[in-house]
């Protein structure tokens, strides 16, 4: 059953990605990407990363894509129906490179016997009395504390930078 679901969501993800790349105007591309994000969130949950799946929807589809949409509307780009795909040689070489990259990546792990699916972390944690959040929280605040704090600083810097860059007059 979960396999079937996986295939459904995978197809949706790929379709959405294709729509992003080939979409005619920015809003259409953005909405396709949102579709991809939702599909990916579903796949995360199927893979047992429930918290990450939730974060995917909240942060990516909810915050980042909304931000993009705000900018598109601010700049009034939503009416652009002119195609801005680079033509001819660009398209061909782009496809070729892309195809090759995919092929090389696939070859990198094609020879092996494939990775075995480990145990569902949430079920394990649930047996100990934890929940979906704590399986992320405990490593985060114990082993990766410094990285966590630095990420916070990074976000602060990003905020300051964004504000400064977007000001009309400095």
């Amino acid at each position, binding site marked *: 059953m979960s396999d079937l679901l996986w295939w459904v969501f995978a197809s949706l993800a790929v379709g959405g990605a294709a729509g992003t790349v080939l979409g005619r105007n*920015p809003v259409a591309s953005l909405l396709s990407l949102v579709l991809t994000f939702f599909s990916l969130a579903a796949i*995360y949950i199927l893979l047992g990363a429930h918290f990450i799946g939730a974060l995917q929807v909240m942060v990516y589809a909810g915050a980042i894509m909304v931000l993009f949409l705000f900018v*598109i509307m601010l700049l009034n780009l939503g009416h652009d129906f002119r195609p801005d795909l680079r033509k001819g040689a660009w398209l061909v070489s782009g496809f070729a490179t892309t195809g090759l990259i995919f092929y090389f*990546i696939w070859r990198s792990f094609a020879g092996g016997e494939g990775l075995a699916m480990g145990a569902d972390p949430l079920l394990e944690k649930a047996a100990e009395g934890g929940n979906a959040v704590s399986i*992320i929280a405990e490593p985060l605040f114990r082993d990766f504390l410094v990285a966590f704090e630095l990420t916070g600083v990074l976000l602060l810097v*990003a905020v300051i930078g964004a504000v400064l860059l977007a000001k009309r007059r400095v």
Partner: protein
Amino acid sequence: MVTNSLVLAAILFSIGVLGVVVRRNAIILFLCIELMLNAVNLAFVALSRAVGIEGQVFVFFVMAVAAAEAAVGLAIVISIFRHSETVDLKNFNLLRW
């Protein structure tokens, strides 16, 4: 499912690369970059199912950084638009020097 997810991640990544190469609209270019980041996230999550929980922790960080980068990047796009009324990349060749 893990292996299949990795293949899917590869496909999404490739499509993202294609988009970066062929599209001239800055916003859509950005969207394709986000697509690539998500492909990487998928790979991390899939591998974490096979190897350990650290994969998911790393995805957490990736998302945070992606958000920061999106914010700053869009601020730059706005500045560019204010400067030249367009976000079509064919008009910008200052990177030549």
